[in-house]
């Protein structure tokens, strides 16, 4: 497929160096999966810092009780946009960047199946990010009252009554959704049609399997979110009453629609990383992946279960008891396939010759801390207990263990694992280890106290709080600033590695397995033009 974009041009040298359009045009028009992957990852890193800066402002406000730095309205805008930016503009693009860079290399394909759509999928993201954040700046000039202030869940009736920030968020979500759907279609077509000869579905790398489930979940659920925010838009401007009780609508309906998307979204974010972690763990344990089939089946089971458990996010909204019980038990049943995954990760390490390079450290941190997220999730799934924890800081701590430790740290494991392959240089192991230890310690310093805050009854999404919560909030804020600042080491380490450094071998890590390690580091601009044969593996 890569020839689709090059056939019309002059012959080019086989590896690097072909003829590009100059400057920004190259990046605007590229259809090369490696270029697009790089753009996705760069964009994700940038937005990671944007979202991080927002939440550091929030944590600074929460350092002490009382209102010191900002008005509550602005506080509300920061928390909602922080979440939307981190989920849609940092974590999801990072995973898509991995997919773009790695899937063709790992399955022996010359490029993604739909390169032009791939380009479009990426370039929808920057305008979407702009739409999300623009209302902040418009407000400075007296236009509107700032960004969306409803929290990322956009619950009606608050979002029906909100200012122009809500409209901006709705259109941003539409753009992000289209981008995700295009990316998903591209990945599914690539994995179905472009596998190397002899690579059956059950020989696909686990990373590809994780992404395949994510892609299907995105296609099944993003359109529901698109429908929900469209209803919100027509409620706001065109006189419909989907969520407006005055006209016979129901605000609770919005919660159903939102979480029908919102719960699978958690697995959308995490499945690619559950696919990635076994590769890292196996590499540094110098053992094959344990329980490949069991992990694939678990991915599928989690994918299916994830779309039938949504109402556990609003147990307290009022539901008949049979519905409560159904959603409780179905939610808890997700822990079974997840437990299988944990077991396989540990069994892969069992009696392995383990070394602790940076990617392995992040993978281990991921396993331990994501385990905390899983166990606290079980507590929240309990209807009786949830009545106490609902909408408290316990929930905040829980989903940050899932999405920072399970999401961002998984991404970091992947970046350190593949960065030498992408750039051809080794990163600084010393800085990598420093980054890991600072991250893991400050992460726990930030979020562990929030469990206690939640247990003590501190509600989430408040800019001011009662005095008895002061100490834990102060600790959490100190932790969050160390956490935020230590990510600069990460960015610097990547920058250094891109610029130069010790040459990386083709097979960067001693125990690494897979097609991507048979290519040079960095791989040529067009790779696997001659398809590898997978028959005998």
């Amino acid at each position, binding site marked *: *497929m890569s*020839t*689709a974009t090059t*056939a*019309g041009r002059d012959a080019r040298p086989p590896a690097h160096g072909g003829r590009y359009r100059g400057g920004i045009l190259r990046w605007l028009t590229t259809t090369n999966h490696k270029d697009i992957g790089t753009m996705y990852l760069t964009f994700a890193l940038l937005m990671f810092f944007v979202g991080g800066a927002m939440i550091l402002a929030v944590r600074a406000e929460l350092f002490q009780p009382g209102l010191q730095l900002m008005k509550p309205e602005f506080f509300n805008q920061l928390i909602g946009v922080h979440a939307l930016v981190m989920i849609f503009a940092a974590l999801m693009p990072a995973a898509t960047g991995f997919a773009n860079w790695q899937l063709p290399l790992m399955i022996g394909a010359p490029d993604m*199946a*739909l390169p032009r759509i791939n380009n479009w999928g990426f370039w929808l993201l920057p305008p979407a990010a702009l739409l999300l954040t623009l209302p902040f700046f418009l407000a400075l000039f007296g236009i509107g*009252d700032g960004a969306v202030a409803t929290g990322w869940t956009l619950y009606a009736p608050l979002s*029906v*009554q*909100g*200012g122009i920030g809500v409209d901006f968020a709705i259109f941003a979500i539409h753009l992000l959704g289209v981008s995700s*759907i295009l990316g*998903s*279609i591209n990945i*599914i*077509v690539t994995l*179905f*049609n*472009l596998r190397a000869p002899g690579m059956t579905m059950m020989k696909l790398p686990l990373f590809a399997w994780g992404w395949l489930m994510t892609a299907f979940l995105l*296609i*099944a*659920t*993003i*359109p*529901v*979110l*698109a*429908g*929900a925010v469209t*209803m919100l838009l027509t*409620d*706001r*401007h065109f*006189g419909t*009453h*989907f969520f*407006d*009780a*005055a*006209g*016979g609508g*129901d605000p*609770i*309906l919005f919660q*159903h*629609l939102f979480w*029908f998307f919102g719960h699978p979204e958690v697995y959308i974010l995490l499945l690619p990383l559950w696919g990635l972690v076994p590769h890292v763990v196996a590499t540094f344990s110098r053992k094959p992946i344990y329980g490949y089939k069991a992990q694939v089946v678990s991915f599928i089971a989690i994918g299916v279960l994830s779309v039938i458990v949504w109402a556990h996010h609003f147990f307290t*909204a*009022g*539901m*008949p008891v049979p*519905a409560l019980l159904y959603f409780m038990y179905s939610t808890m049943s997700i822990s079974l396939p997840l437990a299988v995954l944990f077991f396989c990760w540990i069994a892969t390490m069992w009696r392995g010759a383990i070394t602790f390079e940076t990617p392995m450290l992040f993978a281990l941190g991921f396993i331990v801390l994501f385990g905390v997220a899983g166990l606290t999730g079980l507590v929240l799934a309990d209807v009786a207990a949830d009545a106490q924890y609902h909408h408290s800081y316990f929930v905040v701590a829980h989903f940050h263990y899932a999405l920072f430790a399970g999401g961002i740290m998984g991404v970091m494991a992947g970046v350190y694992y593949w960065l030498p392959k992408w750039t051809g240089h080794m990163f600084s192991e010393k800085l990598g280890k420093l980054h890991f230890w600072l991250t893991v310690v400050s992460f726990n310093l930030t979020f562990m106290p929030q469990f206690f805050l939640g247990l003590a009854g501190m509600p989430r999404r408040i800019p001011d709080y009662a005095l008895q919560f002061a100490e834990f909030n102060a600790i959490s804020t100190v932790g969050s600033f160390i956490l935020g600042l230590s990510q600069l080491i990460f960015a610097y380490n990547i920058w250094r590695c891109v610029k130069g450094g010790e040459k990386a071998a083709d097979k960067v890590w001693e125990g690494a397995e897979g097609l991507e390690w048979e290519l040079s580091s960095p791989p040529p601009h067009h790779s696997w033009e001659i398809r590898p044969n997978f028959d005998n593996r």
Partner: protein
Amino acid sequence: METTANRPPGNRKLVARLLLLVAAAFAFGFALVPLYDVLCDATGFNGKTRPGGLGVGGIAAPDARAPSRIDLSRTVTVEFTGTVMPGLPWEMRPLTTSLDLHPGELHQARFLVHNRSPQTIVGQAVPSVSPGQAAQHFEKLDCFCFAQQTLAPGETKELPLTFIVKPEIDERIRTVTLSYAFFNVAAQKPAPQERE
């Protein structure tokens, strides 16, 4: 495109199928709206009583009109409350705050509304019954919420409500709360702008 020959044969078909899946998921999102209403009608989910009054809140059975017997063996407390939503410069309070009654008895309660603005305003009340299971057995025979209410500037009005708590109500339910939210009908169309 000059490279069509190079294209793996199944791509176009697979993309078409996946796009169909996207369209189906989008349609499913909208299909959830009527599905949700059906579910609410059947279960009394969220305390929705059926608007229109003739049918009973919950399942509209044709024989539901005749609450034949009065269950003297127990009493149920019915509490009344009301809220005026933002954008409606009215005041509202129940004149009857609570009633102890036997299931099956016909009762009346009254609410007081007052328009404190210098304009004539049309409002609409939306009821909600809590707990949700009680909504099916809370029958409003006559209610001011069946129609829009118009109040002249400064006007105060008493609004009546006639209802029966049916004897089929679950014996474990001792207290039922009926809540009204009053909305400004005119403000519904250009909703958000004029908040400030």
